[in-house]
């Protein structure tokens, strides 16, 4: 009897593996998020018998594993990558453009939130599908506002107000070491857009690092660090705990105002004290700037050129990114689904509260931008960060630093024309 069961078992496995094509899927989510994704994939596997999707957890990291596997002839069929990797990999022919397949499947830009369809596209070629979206907004600690006598329900609206609030909120101990940082700008390009600048001109397909408004933004960012000694800030920062824990510096009141993504709502719920209170709004902007800037980032699903099951992989991806599944997955991640209809799906609505609504509103009605995606990967971002450091340390003026970036990246891009 036992033998027979064993034989049957082996036979059924053989039959399944013979009939169903296996699609290997490198997903990048562990823990609860990974479990949520796996249960969605399980449903796909049960819903049909043509394809079996084997989901493997491979963290993206810096992409070393991905680069290695893409150089070989045996690759997974679907890979999860960071947004900035999409165009470099596509440009080098390591992942396939999806334009034709998307057109055939009837998936168009109107299915996606405005501005998201172009995300991950280079010279008209669409190399991947965004998994979920990550949106940055302005976050402030209401408790800290109360402490210094500011109205906790009114965030700064202009850059001038932001500067005033920052001065009030910065807090030092007797020895002069920082106890609380008033404002912590991290993603510096957000402020280029807030000031009315841009990093990329879609009309001419040129980078615009030294846009006049970018220079103004850089001048302001560096004036900010003239007030808070950069060195003091670094030392203070070295003591900040893990974002995904109760040692999160924002939750502990070590940062009063900052850029915050929607997943931090979940972090605050999980790890924040019950007395912790914070608000979310658009970024404050100067006169003539943009007060509705919405920075979007995230990860992508791509299909390697060397995959032998590209059609099956694409079919699976269309299912996975369909409205309902996208909504479920975004809800598990506390991210925002990239498709318009997913926003209305009940699976996503479960996580939509007043705070999440602000993010969705920014995304639907704001000035949405993503960091320009170029074949040179992170080089542009690295140079911009370095330029800001040079300005802050007084090595260069904002104009000198950004002129240098413009020249250098253009030089670099010449190799990719």
């Amino acid at each position, binding site marked *: 009897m036992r033998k027979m069961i064993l034989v049957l078992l082996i036979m059924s496995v053989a039959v399944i593996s013979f009939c169903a094509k296996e699609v290997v899927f490198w997903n990048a989510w562990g823990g609860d998020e990974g479990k949520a994704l796996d249960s969605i994939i399980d449903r796909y596997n049960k819903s049909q018998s043509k394809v079996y999707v084997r989901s493997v957890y491979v963290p993206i990291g810096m992409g070393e594993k991905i680069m290695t596997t893409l150089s070989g002839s045996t690759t997974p069929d679907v890979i999860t990558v960071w947004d900035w990797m999409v165009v470099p990999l596509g440009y080098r022919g390591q992942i396939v453009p999806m334009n034709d397949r998307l057109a055939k499947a009837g998936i168009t830009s109107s299915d996606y939130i405005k501005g998201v369809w172009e995300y991950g596209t280079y010279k008209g070629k669409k190399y991947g599908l965004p998994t979920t979206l990550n949106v940055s907004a302005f976050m402030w600690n209401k408790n800290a506002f109360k402490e210094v006598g500011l109205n906790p329900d009114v965030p700064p609206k202009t850059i001038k107000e932001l500067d005033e609030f920052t001065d009030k909120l910065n807090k030092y101990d007797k020895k002069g070491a920082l106890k609380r940082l008033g404002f912590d700008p991290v993603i510096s390009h957000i402020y280029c857009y807030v000031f009315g600048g841009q990093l990329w001109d879609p009309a001419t397909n040129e980078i615009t690092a030294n846009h006049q408004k970018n220079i103004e933004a850089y001048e302001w960012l560096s004036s900010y660090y003239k007030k808070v000694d950069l060195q003091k800030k670094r030392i203070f920062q070295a003591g900040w705990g893990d974002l995904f824990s109760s040692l999160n510096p924002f939750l502990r009141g070590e940062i009063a105002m900052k850029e915050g993504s929607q997943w931090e709502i979940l972090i605050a719920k999980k790890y924040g004290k019950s007395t912790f209170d914070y608000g979310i709004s658009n970024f404050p902007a100067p006169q003539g700037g943009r007060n509705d800037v919405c920075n979007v980032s995230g990860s992508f699903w791509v299909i390697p050129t060397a995959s032998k099951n590209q059609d099956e992989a694409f079919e699976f991806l269309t299912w996975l990114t369909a409205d309902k599944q996208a909504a479920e997955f975004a809800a598990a991640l506390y991210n925002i689904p990239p498709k318009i209809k997913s926003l209305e799906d009940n699976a996503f609505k479960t996580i939509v509260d007043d705070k999440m609504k602000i993010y969705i509103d920014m995304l639907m009605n704001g000035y949405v931008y993503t960091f320009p995606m170029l074949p040179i990967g992170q080089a542009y971002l*690295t140079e911009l960060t370095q330029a800001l450091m040079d300005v802050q340390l007084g090595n260069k003026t904002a104009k000198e630093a950004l002129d240098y970036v413009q020249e250098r990246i253009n030089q670099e891009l010449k190799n990719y024309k």
Partner: protein
Amino acid sequence: MGLLFILPWILGLLIFTLYPVVASFILSFTRTGEGSAIKWVGLDNYITAFREPDFFRAILNTLILSLIGIPVAQIMSLVAALLLNVKMKFQGVFRTIFFLPSVVPAVATGLLWKWILNPRLGPINTFLDSIGLAGPGWLADPAWVKPSLIIMSFWGIGGTMVIYLAGLQNIPTEYYEAAKLDGAGSWACLKYITMPMLRPVTLFNTIMAIITSFQSFSNIIIMLDMDGGMKKAGLVYGLYIYTNAFRDFKMGYSSALAWILLAFTFVSVMLTYKFFNRSGDQEVS
């Protein structure tokens, strides 16, 4: 038959060492273009390197770390070896304790030292704070990044120390006895017997230290960021190769960088040889 037994090793060498070495040499003359096309660019990658400010910064940082770090680490491991060569109780235990840190993997070492050197929460600054001194910013201060890295490198002197220890035990005790009869003190013994007798060991240790120091990477990327921290003060050559390959996708350029590193290492090792030979001749004369 003998060939058959050694075949797995030969195959391993050919496939996993020789092939990548040759491939990277060829890649260093290419650039990946649109599609999967690989363009032949001749010496372009090598020329580009010598125009990059970061390339020189990386070389300078690596050289500073090596020129200060290696001699100090050599002296420290020699001193440790001399101390542990003294016959006493629990000699084995002490040797093990001194050797232990070098068994810890680079990543764990990096994480550990990141905490030790944390300017706000680390034990060093907490201690300095308790006796009323303001500790430095360590890795948060561009001026302190290199000293921090050098201090951290002393953590791994165990390996060098063991080799010195073996060298010390190879020195025949008759020399010391004869010297003592002639009235030599312990300083004279160290200077005229121990040091010259250890010369081959010192040469070996120095060369190995140069090679590892030029390739240092893992604990630095753990302790600092990809750019080598503020002002790129910790941007070492290994880090520069890595970011070019895996962040900026320039495989050809980083292959070229790797070959330049090989040339540098070769020159440095030859200079070390020369230096050791000359200082040896002087002692004989």
